[in-house]
């Protein structure tokens, strides 16, 4: 037997304000259909486990994940600047380029935005912005500005551009070679510094969502991961919630730093796994859900053009990186530099031109499929923003680009393998070197986990797995979204799968041609 303060008969002290509320009911039309394919299985909510729930509810949860990385990356900065100039013996360069980048891709493929959850760059900025390491504070430091609307409309394009820029800088200074370890330090300092500036000027994790060079990569490739992120347990509870503490912040948690509402999330694209919504929800209606791999590629009903363009641009970049590792590219780049009076590799015109050409070629293939196979009577034009506008080209290009995510992700992952298999063992002597032990003559320094032919084999296997994943995704996406607007279901499926296969074959052949070049 319980009493309710809102029950006037039982409690005349009920607040009179609710009597004056006449809010419209939330719209529910098409709700079930909209989220049917993307809602995770309730049984895969790992926060049903009391131990996990207790861990995730703790305010120290994310802090304890960020802290070790924070220590590592400040060590990277200092050791890179003050330590030995030998890259393989410098802890800063060794851990960053031999181990960390490969691990980030493993986390991406398996989990999604696992790195974002523990990222020391965003974490550092957020600590300063919130003026605390982990407590729920009420006042933030900084200007708290909103990211300008015209830029926000571009969605993933800004982080893609920042990733292209960072990659070019990294290639120009041979940072990831790795070259001079101090350059690695300066790069990390640059990322931390720019992150801090954005955290102090703008609200929430504007940097992570709109600027971070890695966010487009992790966001797109992470959609193959098996963690759906924090989602609603019961959407009806979320719809009826009149406070949205998960978005605005509640007593126990901040509002979502990533601008995501668990009640409408249909992929792990923008879930930074920070758990703030889980803590903030007063109804305990948010859970951390697992999902089958590739679900966030296939399931979302709303496909975004910025994501599609990000995928093909990232695809163009990784193909460029493969091509420039082949024997013939260096002479082309030198030839171009001599004519354009640019000092050395990589020539920016060749860099951007190649990426654009490869991205446009991929988009062009999608355009060709649309031109050939789109139903003439289908009304595919739809007004809207850059992210959501509809057209015949977009009706094919956007889903096809989503379908390519697994092979693009596999390509990026395979690209990191040579350094990992050839040099990751150098991490041990680099750690010892900090304390004055060991050196380049240590037997571990020269240890390779795999030989070059085996590395190529692993790369080809990774590409094959990615291609198979992409084929499966494309088959499902085509069946659900393209067949309805195509003139022939068979032709649509054959051509889209053909594009996936072509991408896979090109990537695999390039790896064979690269001979495990790092």
């Amino acid at each position: 037997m319980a009493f309710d303060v809102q029950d006037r008969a039982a409690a005349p002290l009920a607040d009179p304000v609710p009597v004056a509320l006449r809010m419209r009911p939330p719209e529910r039309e098409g709700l079930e259909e909209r989220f049917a394919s993307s809602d995770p299985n309730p049984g895969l909510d790992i926060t049903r486990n009391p131990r996990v729930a207790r861990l995730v509810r703790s305010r120290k949860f994310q802090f304890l994940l960020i802290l070790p990385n924070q220590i590592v990356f400040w060590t990277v900065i200092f050791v890179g600047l003050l330590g030995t100039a030998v890259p393989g013996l410098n802890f800063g360069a060794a851990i960053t380029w031999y181990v960390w980048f490969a691990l980030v891709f493993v986390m991406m493929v398996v989990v999604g935005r696992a790195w974002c959850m523990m990222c020391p760059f965003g974490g550092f900025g957020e600590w300063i912005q919130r003026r605390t390491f982990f407590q729920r504070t009420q006042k933030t430091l900084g200007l708290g500005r909103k990211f300008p609307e015209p830029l926000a409309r571009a969605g993933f394009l800004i982080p893609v551009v920042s990733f292209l820029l960072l990659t070019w800088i990294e290639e120009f200074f041979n940072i990831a070679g790795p070259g001079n370890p101090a350059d690695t330090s300066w790069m990390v300092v640059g990322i931390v510094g720019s992150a801090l500036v954005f955290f102090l000027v703008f609200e929430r994790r504007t940097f992570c969502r709109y600027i971070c060079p890695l966010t487009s990569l992790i966001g797109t490739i992470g959609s193959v991961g098996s963690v759906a992120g924090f989602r609603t347990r019961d959407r009806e509870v979320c719809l009826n919630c009149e406070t949205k503490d998960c978005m605005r912040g509640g007593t126990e948690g901040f509002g979502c730093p990533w601008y995501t509402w668990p009640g409408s999330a249909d992929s792990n694209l923008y879930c930074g796994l920070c758990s703030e919504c889980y803590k903030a929800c007063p109804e305990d209606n948010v859970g951390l859900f697992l999902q089958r791999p590739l679900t966030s590629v296939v399931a979302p009903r709303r496909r975004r053009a910025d994501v599609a363009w990000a995928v093909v641009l990232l695809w163009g970049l990784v193909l460029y990186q493969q091509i420039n590792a082949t024997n013939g590219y260096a002479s082309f780049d030198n030839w171009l530099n001599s004519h354009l009076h640019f000092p050395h590799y990589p020539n920016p015109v060749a860099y951007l031109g190649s990426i654009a050409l490869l991205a446009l070629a991929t988009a062009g293939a999608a355009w060709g499929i649309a031109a050939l196979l789109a139903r003439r009577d289908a009304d595919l034009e739809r007004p809207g923003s850059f992210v959501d506008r509809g057209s015949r080209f977009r009706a094919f290009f956007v889903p096809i680009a989503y379908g390519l995510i697994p092979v693009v992700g596999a390509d990026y992952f395979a690209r990191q393998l040579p350094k990992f298999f050839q040099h990751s063992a150098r991490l041990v002597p680099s750690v010892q070197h900090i304390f004055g032990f060991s050196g380049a003559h240590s037997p571990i320094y020269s240890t390779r986990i795999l030989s070059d032919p085996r590395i190529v084999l692993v790369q080809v296997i990774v590409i094959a797995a990615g291609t198979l994943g992409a084929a499966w995704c494309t088959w499902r996406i085509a069946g659900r979204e393209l067949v309805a607007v195509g003139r022939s279901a068979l032709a649509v499926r054959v051509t889209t799968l053909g594009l996936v296969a072509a991408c896979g074959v090109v990537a695999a052949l390039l790896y064979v041609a690269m001979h495990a070049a790092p």
Partner: protein
Amino acid sequence: MTLIATTEAPSGTGQPRVTVLADRCAGCQECVIRCPVGALSMDTGRWIAQADDAVCVGCRQCVRTCPFSAIVVDGPMLVGPRAEPEPVQPERLVGDVGEVRRGFASWTEALAEADRCLACPDPTCVRGCPAHNDIPGFIAAVGRRDLQGAHEVLRRTSVLPDVCARVCNQAAQCEGSCTWSLAGGTPVAIGRLERFVTDTMAVPPPAAPLPGGGSSHGGMPVDGMSVGIIGAGPAAAGAAWALVEAGASVTVYEKDPVPGGLCNWGIPDFTLPEAVAARPWRQLTEAGVDLRCATEIRPEDLDRLLATHDAVIAAHGASMPMRLPVPGAELEGVTDATTFLQGAKAALEPGGDPVAFRAALGLAGQDGDPGREASRVLVLGAGNTAMDVARTARRLGLEATCVDWLDERFALTRPDELDEARHEGVEVRFCATVTRLDPDGDSGRVASAVLARTTQARADRPPKPLGGASEALRADLVVMAMGYRVDPTFAGTLPGTPVRRQAAGLADRHWSASGILAGPASAFADHYPVGTLALGREVGLWAAALPVRARVWTAGDALVGPSTVVEAMAQGRRAAAAVLDARPGRPDRAAPPGADRAARVLVCYESSGGHTARAATAIADGFTERGYKARVLPIAKVGPAELASADAVVVGSFVEGFVVAGVRPAKAMRAWLAGLPRLGGRPVGVFCTYAVAPKGALAAMRRALEDTGATVVAEAAFGPRQLKPEAGVSGPLVFGRQLARQLSVEGARGNGQ
């Protein structure tokens, strides 16, 4: 009549344009459910909001309520001009106490203004109103020409609509919180519409109790409960009204010969006509309230009252005038606002003698002779009371100068009142302070004041005196009108008063969601942070619902210090509702009223791993077995409303610390206990759960609760053995049963509910 045009956006386009930022809109529908005109709906394919510009009126409610700032609205606000009747300009000010501010003269004006109301689904004006009047509800009734219905809507939350319509500072309350105002435009004239309702149809008297003692407004039978109320101001009126409607026997003790408190003697007739001010008490006495004027209750009389009444509501106000401690303050011709206003009121009433009053003060007026110099009244302060004094002085034929050390930008008076005063010839000097009052030779009577300049950079910083030359100002009478304070002798009897009206911690989430706290304060609201002020008032409102000591509640200025008529009235109603809810009884009564009602216990806890939550549930089960109504809540969900609605409270926390060091209640529990309101006399049980030893955790919780005036009747600590699931949480269950037995219905009430 002046028409105030709506604020036009710089773009100057004819239609608002709504942009939903597709990248950031999460489809939460906060904008959809709150849009007053239904311009927003869902694009179900993309599951983001979409707007119909043709329907949008540009009120920007969506902008304020979107949690992710994903909506931008450009363009004008589509709302008609606000009708603003100009104040009455009497041809001859001297002796004229006619009402200055005008209401709507016709239905046409009222209907046009009512039409400006958007009837917001989540009306911020309701939150901005201290009484939480259903403003869209009564305006809709006006729109239907249904004055009866408008009165019924207002009556749910207010018994002084005619008074509030005249004396409320609507710009800082309901009108400042109107969605048009929050958007930077001109709000609906809520106060004038309220006045139109009460001017056109008389405020109905208190409803007779239903047969059997119940109230027609949703209360429960009270079976002859006797309640004593100290004071007869607006808080007392609000409380007495609710009690008498519920069938209680109400006795009001007023020290003045006439009821009304500040409304009677503190607000001049030209702002609040006497007939309006007297209306509530006339109706209350006709309804059976035993009004005993000229009966002062001192703190030492409280126990005597408690022996006579089942409950006492202390609403004695804050009537002690504050005085400026400057040299010369003791001179003859230096008085306070209360004395001046009370004398002037009598002098200006029909049959009064203003000349004799002036003469008694040693003052002379022009009296129609332009060559004759009128005496000058120097008013210290430039708040609303000071304006009343100065404007009254002008009506007595005197010159009046107000001096205030604040900067005019941060003045405490209402801007419209300041304009009216200046228009009536009152000189108002800001950034000036009196450093000395000088006598006229050896006469012992004040003749001049020495003024020094001050400067004030920010509203939250006190002004600083500037050096340099000072100025002497002739002053034939000095009236100190810096405001009032609560009689300090009551502080010992009513612990915890006055309550500070400042909301601590995270703002109430519903208030945040409504948008009242978003954005900068508007110019119409005189840049008052209307949302923050309103949230602060909630602290006082809920403090009125909780007893300060056994069977004693407080309301109005006595509770929170000098405030407003509407706030006092709302607190009085809230205190009365709390009395009716708690059903306290004198110890000598055989059967307290409502004794058949099941007692209610609130078990609140702070749990980390679930042990404390399970223990709390088991304790509640123990209470339920004994016939209690039990409610179990985590402390994060326990606010004053929950505490006020419980006859007894059980508080439990897990214990944190390192085995032997730093062992204490959980941090969240400590913070919660530190922010508790007064729980005067309320019986409380305390428990904690621990892994190794509770050490001083229970004692710390007990001390914190006793500091609030609660009576801790039992405490228990539960270790791992009692909390094992296989043990069936028997320890907490037994504790709940024992506590329930201890807090028998009579015991709980005897302790002062």
